[in-house]
């Protein structure tokens, strides 16, 4: 039987039961490999449940630094009887199945083309521990020990990680190390060597290992957000929770210990966006974090903020849709809902981060953009980026950069006789001046409404006033094009007829697929869209290729629709490829789809141009 042989390039999947303490054990394996200088990319695949349902943890070990999902599993750690059959099916031929052999495995439940590794985890635990919870937790550490032995993971790295985890709790530290060693010893004595190995490298460099939600929260702190209002919703809750936990120190006034920010967990999303709009109206930088259903609820306010021209930042950690959606699965399915959120003629600025580094950068940038443009700005992340730890560039900040607070008319400017029209386009860029409440005793006060107003914020239902306002908003949206991040081009090594457009969490899988395709002689130029409104570079890119594949993680091809509506591209040039089952898109999926389609596009039937 063949045997998968690989060094620093394989996928291990752990099948566990939710609430069994497996998450931290599995993370230990990922972190230990990382500490050996070999990049890893772990992904949680978990149910909407706290205890008892199946959960998976997939660790991709990737010396090349391919951080997307590859597709396929080389080794399965099958710890959950509920999902046994499905887990066994998923293993690549020649791959490995590791299981708890305390009870015999019927031949019919296994496969002939995989290598089966049994270890009596329950038996070992039962003979060593009497406490039920210990039996459960140390079972996890036992298989970590066995894996360390089988894969050549440096046990000292695991011990160091234990040391950090159990600092000051020596008893726990010792018992964990002991369990680890029991697992290692057993594997050394009883288990046959396998073909998957980790070798020490220096490929991680100064990269950091962090989830996108934490990164977004830090971006909001660095970007100067002082008000956060939120309502718990998976997969976005940890944005606000990270904001709360980091601001305890980072925003404490050194003299009084009081907070330089305010966080409110509101009664619903209607209220959280209301708080953000109120704070933005009053000159504070404010944000909320939510997911698709929250966006639906916030839509009325989003329209008000658009027309009343109030800065607001919404971090949308997208999940499976539609309706209440698959709360623990990933998708990019709120693109259109956010681009046009609300009643009336509204359009919004969207940013598409590819990883935690950009979650940090774009969340901070969104706060600047929202105040510069006086409008809601959406950071369109998703569950795959938001809730998984990802290796990425270290966060960076330039201390010399000041916040862009936008056009705010001051007390002195009003005193000097400036003509203040709240909705007056004085600079030709469509962006008016605003005043904060309380600025001046007799000048600059105004009454904020939606659309029923003239350029001086007076009540008006007159058609020409409405038209003036809409035309100015259109100019403002044009101005936005020059402020939002440009798309990123990855040029093929050779001139290419075909191209791809992609965005957000598709990025790492796309980079890997492009390399694989180039290896097969298929060269494509690739453009990563990073923002809406779309710059002219995107239309030019599409125009210079005969076909452009648009890869999306939703059913409708939402970015494609937006490109056709808003970018001035030829719809016939675009070919949408969608992946929408709730799992992150894989490099293998992209490679296969492009290979098939390119083959099809290159075929010239004999009877072409002839009438049958």
């Amino acid at each position, binding site marked *: 039987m063949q045997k998968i042989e690989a060094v620093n390039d394989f996928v291990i999947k752990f099948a566990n039961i939710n609430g069994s303490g497996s998450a931290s054990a599995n993370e230990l394996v990922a972190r230990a490999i990382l500490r050996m200088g070999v990049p890893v990319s772990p992904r949680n695949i978990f149910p909407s449940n706290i205890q008892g349902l199946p959960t998976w943890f997939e660790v991709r070990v990737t010396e090349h630094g391919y951080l997307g999902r590859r597709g396929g599993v080389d080794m399965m750690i099958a710890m959950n009887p509920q999902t046994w059959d499905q887990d066994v099916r998923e293993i690549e031929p020649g791959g490995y199945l590791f299981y708890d052999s305390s009870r015999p495995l019927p031949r019919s439940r296994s496969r002939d083309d995989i290598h089966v590794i049994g270890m009596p985890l329950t038996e070992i635990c039962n003979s060593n521990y009497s406490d039920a919870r210990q039996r459960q937790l140390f079972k996890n550490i036992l298989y970590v020990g066995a894996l360390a032995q089988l894969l050549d993971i440096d046990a000292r790295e695991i011990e160091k990680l234990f040391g950090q985890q159990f600092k000051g709790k020596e008893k726990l530290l010792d018992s964990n190390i002991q369990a680890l060693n029991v697992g290692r010893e057993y594997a050394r004595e009883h288990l046959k060597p396998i073909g998957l190995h980790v070798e020490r490298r220096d490929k991680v460099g100064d990269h950091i290992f962090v989830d996108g939600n934490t990164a977004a929260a830090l971006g909001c702190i660095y970007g100067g957000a002082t008000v956060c209002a939120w309502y718990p919703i998976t997969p976005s809750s940890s944005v606000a929770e990270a904001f709360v936990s980091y601001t305890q120190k980072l925003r404490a006034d050194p003299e009084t210990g009081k907070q*330089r920010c305010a966080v409110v967990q509101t009664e619903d999303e209607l209220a959280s966006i209301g708080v*953000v709009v*109120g704070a933005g109206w009053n000159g504070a930088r404010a944000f909320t974090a939510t997911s698709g259903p929250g966006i639906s609820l916030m839509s009325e306010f989003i329209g008000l903020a658009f027309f009343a021209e109030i800065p607001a930042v919404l971090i949308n950690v997208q999940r499976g849709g539609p309706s209440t959606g698959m709360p623990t699965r990933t998708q990019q399915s709120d693109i259109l809902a956010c681009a046009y959120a609300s009643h009336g003629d509204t359009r919004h600025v969207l940013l598409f981060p590819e990883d935690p580094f950009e979650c940090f950068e774009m969340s901070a940038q969104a706060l600047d953009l929202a105040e510069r443009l006086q409008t809601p700005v959406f950071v369109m992340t998703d569950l795959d980026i938001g809730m998984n730890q990802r290796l990425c560039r270290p966060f960076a900040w330039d201390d010399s950069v000041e916040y862009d607070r936008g056009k705010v008319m001051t007390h002195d400017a009003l005193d000097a006789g400036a003509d203040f029209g709240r909705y007056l386009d004085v600079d030709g860029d469509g962006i008016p001046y605003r005043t904060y409440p309380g600025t001046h005793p007799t000048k600059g006060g105004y009454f904020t409404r939606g659309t029923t107003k003239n350029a001086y914020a007076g009540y008006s239902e007159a058609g020409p006033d409405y038209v003036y306002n809409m035309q100015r908003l259109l100019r403002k949206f044009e101005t936005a094009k020059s402020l939002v991040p440009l798309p990123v081009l990855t040029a093929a090594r050779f001139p290419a007829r075909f191209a791809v457009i992609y965005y957000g969490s598709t990025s790492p899988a796309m980079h890997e697929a492009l390399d694989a395709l180039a290896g097969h002689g298929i060269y494509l130029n690739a453009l990563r869209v990073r923002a809406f409104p779309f710059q002219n570079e995107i239309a030019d890119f599409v125009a210079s290729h005969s076909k452009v594949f648009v890869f999306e993680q939703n059913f409708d091809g939402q970015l494609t629709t937006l490109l056709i509506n808003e970018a001035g591209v030829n719809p016939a040039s675009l070919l949408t490829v969608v992946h929408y089952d709730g799992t992150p898109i894989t490099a293998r999926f992209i490679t296969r789809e492009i290979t098939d389609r390119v083959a099809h596009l290159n075929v010239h039937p004999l009877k072409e141009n002839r009438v049958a």
Partner: protein
Amino acid sequence: MTYLAKPRLHHPTLAKNRVGYTRRDYEGKISTLCAGCGHDSISAAIIQACWELDIEPHRVAKLSGIGCSSKTPDYFLGNSHGFNTVHGRMPSVLTGANLANRELIYLGVSGDGDSASIGLGQFAHVLRRGVNMTYIVENNGVYGLTKGQFSATADKGSKSKRGRANTDAPIDLASLALVMGATFVGRSFSGDKAQLVPLIRAAIAHPGAAVIDVVSPCIAFNNHSGSTKSYDYVREHNEAVNRLDFFPQREEITAEYGEGEVTDVRQHDGSVIRLRKLHADYDPTSRVSAMAYIQEHAARGEVVTGLLYVDNEAADLHKQLNTIDRALNTLGAAELCPGAAALEKINASLR
């Protein structure tokens, strides 16, 4: 409504308050509501209260939802910033505004449709949080702008203009405010300026969530016989529990009263609410007895008005969140951004 523009010139002998403003400086645009609308009387009471309190008009932020009542902030304090938000959601916008700058005075103006129907949730939660504000409900039991539908505060059995009786139980916003933890609850009547003005003054000075439910008859759709929110009905059934005088911190209390006639409630900021009791057994410092009293009288068809409850130890949301004393909207990068060196430490912790 009137189409006559108000003259801009003020009479030179108009009295000025301590901060140099005449009463007319607190006015706003001309009301577009129906002539005789109770809401205009409330606007006049707000103008009077702010002038008397020597508040600089631009230090007040006026927020409202949607409806006739929510249009009124345009008709007073014309130099203040105002925000006509979305239906039923003013409380959350006010909360955000208050968090951004704790130094301004926040006035929330809403109606019974806006606060008791679509906005009941936000009305309840803003009180739970203790946002420092004065929340005035202009309560007429009817939807005016959409021409006469019952609202959630309409009494059961009250008749519409077309003679249909309301079959739903009413929501009593004053009782609800007490349950939800408001630290100042008053009820008044738009036709009783002598009661309403000091109530608004005391509410503005109150350092927590203050609610005043003001019954304010709708002249167009709910002022007929058979309505329990008409001028005549409210006058007949008004049961005032007290009369109050309000003394800001700096003012000396000079009036003399006989023993046992008055109760003084001293608030955090040093201001004093002096209550002249009209009902010997009414104690406005007890939340529980206030609730019982309101319910007992409501069962008899009486509308209890006056200062119903005040907590002189009230705290607000900023205190609970432990935010700094300065307005958050004045902080810049120097105070907010932890800087590159701190970020390097964070990076190190993530390796």
